[in-house]
C-alpha cells in the first residue's frame, strides 16, 4: 500500500461549522483537518461535546442545515469537495461513495420493513438492477458480514434479531455498494463486550478485504487500541492531537490526550487490603425472579431472569455484579431494593426478611437501601429543583424542612457541588454533575446499602473517573455497603472488592476481584475478560 501517491479517500481541510446563536460556543467544530487513506482506520476520539459526531454528519451531509452551517474549509471525498454540492448530488454520494453505521442498532433499522429489503433499498436507489439481482446481491453481502442463514434472515424483521446481528445488517447496508468511505459512529458502544469484539473484528476484516477507508468515532480507548491505524483526538470542537495509534496511546503529547488516556480504568485490579469481616448489611438467599406466565393461549414462555442467586454484602465493602445484557444483574439489583418483587427467596436487611413484605411495612426499609441509576438525564424530575429532589426523601421519613435543607447543603459539598446550586433545575447541570446529585439524593436517606446500577456507564471517561472516586469516598466516609452493577470490567476492576459474574440469570463465578481477574475459573468469565477491548495495550499513565 502506497499511501503517499494515493489520493486519500477523505481529506478534511480547515473545516469549521457554526453553531446557532445562543449556544455555549461559537463553532461546533473549528479548523478541523485530517485525512483518511485507502484501507486505513482513523479513530476520532473525544468526549461528549467534542464535535466528533458533528464532523461525521457534516461529511455525510446529514446535519440540520438550519442549525449547523459549515462556514469554512473543504471536505474532499476522492478529491471532490462535498461542500457546495446540491442535495441531489449529496444523495447520490450517500450510500454509493460513503456509507454510515450508527450507534444504536435497536433504533437505526426500520421496525416494519424486512431487513433484507432494507439492504436492498440502497441498491434500488443507486444501482440499476432487477429485483432478483438485488436480492442475490443482498444475500451475498449478508454472507460477507457472517450473518447466519442469510436466505432465511432476509425475511426477518429487526426485532427478531439480536443487537449484534442488527449491527451486522447495518454494516451490510453501508457496504453493499462497496463505498470508499465507511463512517462508523460509536458502532459498538451499545453492544455487549463479546459482541463488540466480534463486530470490531468484522469491520477490520471487511475493510481490509475491500480497501475501505474508515472513520471510526468512539469515546473508548480500549476500542481505539484494538482497531485504529491512526487517531485524531478532539476537544471542544478542535483537533488537539493526531498521530499513529502507538504514538497516541503510549506517548501522547497534548495534556488533554494524556488526561483522557490516564483516566481509562486499568484491567488490573489494584492491591486492596482484605477487609475484616464486618456486620452483614444485605443478604439474599436463593433469590429467583421469573418473568412471563403461562396463559390460556400462549405457549408458556418463561424467562428466568435470576436463578438461585446468593449474595452477602457487608458494611465497608463493594461487591460487583458483572455480566452482559440479559445476564440478570439489574434484576438482582432491583429485587433487593424491591423495585420489582422476587418470585421466591429471602432478602435480609438488618436481620429482617423483606422479600415478600407488604408495601406498608416495607416503607421503613426503603430508607436503608438506596439506588443510583444509569441515566442521570432521566432519573431526576426535570420540573423540580435538585434541592427539592434531595430533601423529598428525608422529609417523607419525618425530617423537618430546615434539617433536610441543611443536610442537602452538606451533601452537595461532599459530592463536590456548591450548596447554592440546590435551587437550580437538572437541565442546568452536566451529566457528571447530575450523577453527583443522584448520589447526594441517595445519601440524604442515610442508607446502609448503596446500589449503583451502571451508575458510571453513561459518563465520559474523565468524568467517570471522578464519579468513581466519589463513590469510593462516600462508601468509606459512611461505612456503606455498596452493590456495584456494571458491564464494564475495567470499572469493576478498579472499584470492587469482590465480584460476582452472572450469565443468563445464574451466578457462574464469585470471588475476590484480584483473584477472579488473575485466574478466572469459568469459561464465560474468561471470554468476558478476553473480549475486553484493548486488553493487551498498556495505556500511558
Amino acid at each position, binding site marked *: 500500500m502506497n499511501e503517499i501517491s494515493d489520493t486519500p479517500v477523505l481529506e478534511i481541510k480547515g473545516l469549521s461549522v457554526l453553531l446557532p446563536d445562543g449556544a455555549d460556543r461559537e463553532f461546533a467544530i473549528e479548523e478541523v483537518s485530517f485525512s483518511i487513506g485507502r484501507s486505513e482506520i482513523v479513530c476520532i476520539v473525544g468526549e461528549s461535546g467534542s464535535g466528533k459526531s458533528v464532523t461525521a454528519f457534516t461529511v*455525510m451531509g*446529514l446535519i440540520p442545515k438550519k442549525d449547523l452551517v459549515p462556514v469554512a474549509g473543504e471536505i474532499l471525498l476522492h478529491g471532490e469537495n462535498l461542500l457546495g454540492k446540491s442535495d441531489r448530488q*449529496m*444523495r*447520490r*454520494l*450517500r*450510500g*454509493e461513495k460513503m*456509507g*454510515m453505521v*450508527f450507534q*444504536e442498532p435497536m*433504533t*437505526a*433499522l*426500520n*421496525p*416494519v*420493513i424486512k431487513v433484507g429489503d432494507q439492504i436492498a*433499498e*440502497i441498491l434500488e*436507489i*443507486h444501482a440499476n438492477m432487477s429485483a432478483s439481482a438485488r436480492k442475490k446481491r443482498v444475500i451475498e453481502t449478508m454472507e460477507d458480514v457472517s450473518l447466519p442463514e442469510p436466505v432465511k434472515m432476509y425475511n426477518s*424483521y429487526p*426485532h*427478531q434479531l439480536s443487537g449484534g446481528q442488527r449491527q451486522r445488517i*447495518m454494516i451490510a*447496508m*453501508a457496504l453493499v455498494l462497496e463505498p470508499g468511505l465507511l463512517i462508523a459512529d460509536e458502532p459498538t458502544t451499545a453492544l455487549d463486550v463479546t459482541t463488540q469484539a466480534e463486530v470490531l473484528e468484522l469491520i477490520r476484516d471487511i475493510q481490509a478485504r475491500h480497501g475501505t477507508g474508515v472513520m471510526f468515532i468512539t469515546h473508548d480507548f480500549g476500542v481505539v487500541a484494538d482497531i485504529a491505524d491512526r487517531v485524531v483526538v478532539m476537544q471542544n470542537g478542535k483537533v488537539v492531537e493526531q498521530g499513529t495509534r502507538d504514538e497516541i496511546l503510549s506517548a501522547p503529547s497534548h495534556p488533554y490526550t494524556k488526561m483522557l488516556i490516564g483516566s481509562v480504568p486499568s484491567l488490573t485490579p489494584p492491591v486492596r487490603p482484605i477487609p475484616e469481616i464486618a456486620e452483614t448489611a444485605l443478604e439474599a438467599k436463593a433469590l429467583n425472579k421469573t418473568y412471563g406466565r403461562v396463559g390460556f*393461549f400462549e405457549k408458556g414462555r418463561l424467562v428466568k431472569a435470576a436463578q438461585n442467586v446468593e449474595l452477602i454484602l457487608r458494611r465497608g465493602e463493594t461487591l460487583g455484579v458483572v455480566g452482559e445484557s440479559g445476564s440478570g444483574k439489574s434484576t438482582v439489583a432491583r429485587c433487593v431494593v424491591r423495585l420489582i418483587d422476587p418470585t421466591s427467596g429471602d432478602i435480609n436487611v438488618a436481620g429482617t426478611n423483606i422479600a415478600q413484605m407488604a408495601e406498608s411495612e416495607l416503607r421503613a426499609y426503603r430508607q436503608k437501601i438506596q439506588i443510583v441509576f444509569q441515566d442521570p438525564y432521566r432519573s431526576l424530575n426535570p420540573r423540580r429543583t435538585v434541592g427539592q429532589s434531595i430533601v423529598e426523601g428525608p422529609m417523607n421519613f419525618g425530617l423537618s424542612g430546615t434539617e433536610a435543607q441543611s443536610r442537602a447543603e452538606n451533601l452537595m459539598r461532599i459530592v463536590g457541588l456548591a450548596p447554592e446550586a440546590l435551587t437550580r433545575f437538572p437541565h442546568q447541570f452536566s451529566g457528571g454533575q447530575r450523577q453527583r446529585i443522584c448520589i447526594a439524593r441517595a445519601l440524604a436517606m442515610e442508607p446502609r446499602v448503596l446500589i449503583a446500577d451502571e451508575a458510571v456507564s453513561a459518563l465520559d471517561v474523565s468524568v467517570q473517573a471522578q464519579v468513581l472516586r466519589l463513590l469510593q469516598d462516600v462508601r468509606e466516609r459512611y461505612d456503606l455497603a455498596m452493590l456495584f452493577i456494571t458491564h464494564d470490567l475495567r470499572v469493576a476492576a478498579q472499584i470492587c472488592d469482590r465480584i460476582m459474574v452472572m450469565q443468563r440469570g445464574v451466578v457462574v463465578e464469585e470471588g475476590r476481584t484480584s483473584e477472579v481477574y488473575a485466574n478466572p475459573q469459568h469459561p464465560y468469565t474468561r471470554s468476558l475478560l478476553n473480549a475486553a477491548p484493548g486488553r493487551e495495550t498498556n495505556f500511558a499513565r
Partner: protein
Amino acid sequence: MYLYILKRVLSTIPVVVIVVLFVFLMLRLAPGDPAAVIAGDYATAEDVERIREQLGLNDAIPVQMYRWIAQLGSGDLGTAIFSKLPVTTLIGQRLEPTLLLSLTTIVFTVLIAVPLGTLAAYKAGSWIDRFVMLFSVAGFSVPVFVLGYILIYVLAMQLQILPVQGYKSPFEHGFWVFLRHMVLPTMTLSVIYIALIARMTRASVQEILQEDYVRTARAKGQSEFKILMRHALRNAAVPIVTVIGLGIALMIGGVVVTESVYNIPGLGRLVLDAVLARDYPVIQGLILFFSFVYILINLLIDLSYTFFDPRIRY
C-alpha cells in the same frame, strides 16, 4: 399470527354478550313504563295493559330475557310499533344511503387528511403547516348543521353547481347522479374528520421523522419523498388508523344531523324518527345494530395493526 387473529375475534364475544344484556336491561330499567309512553296521554288503563301484554312486559324478567335472546338468535330484532314492519326490514331499507354516505366520507377524509397531515409534518413550522393547523381548529369549531347550510347556500343556491338536497341511489340513477348528490353531504360530514385526522397524522409523522431509521434512510441516499412514503407513513400508521376507526364509529352523530340537513332517507333519519316517536323496538334494534358495527370496526382496526406492524404479528 393466526393465533392473534383468533384471539382477537374470540375476545369480541364477551363484548357482544354485554351489549345484548345492556340493551335488554336498558328498556326494563328506564324510568317510567314504556307501555304508558307508547300508549300516549289519552290512553285508558286497558290500552296500556294491552300494550304491556303485546310487548311481553308482564312476564318475569328471565323469561323476557330468554325470549329476547332467542329472538335475536333467529335474526329478528322485533316489530316496529307504529309502522308494524319488522325492525330488520326498516334498517335494511335505510342502510344503503347511510352506508354509502359513510363510505364516501371516509374515502374523501383519508384522501385529503393523510396527505395534508404528512405535508404539514414534513414542512413543520412553514405556512402550509400553519394553514393545516388553522383549518383543524376551524373544522373542530364549526357545527355540522351550520356548515351544511353554508355549503348549500354557496354551492347549490348561489352557484347552482350542485343539487340542494335529496338522495339518488347509484343502482337506480347511475353513479354520477349519485355522486353529485353526495358531494355536499360528504363535504359537510368530512370536515371535522379531516381536521381530526390531519392533526393526528401530522403529530404521528412528525414524531417518526425524528427516529433513527429515518436518519439511516437519509444516509442511504433515499429521497425525502420516499422517506415519507416508505419509512415514515407506515410507521405512523397505527395511531392514524386508530383515529380513523374511532372517527367512523363516532360518525353516527354527524350522520343524524347531515341526513336531516340534506333530507337523505338513511339510518340517521330513522334514529331521529324513532326517538321522536318513542318507538322502543326500533330504538333498541338500532342501538344493537350500531353496537355491532362499532365492535366490528374495532376488530378490523386491531387486525389492521398486524398488517402495519410486524412486531404485533410475531
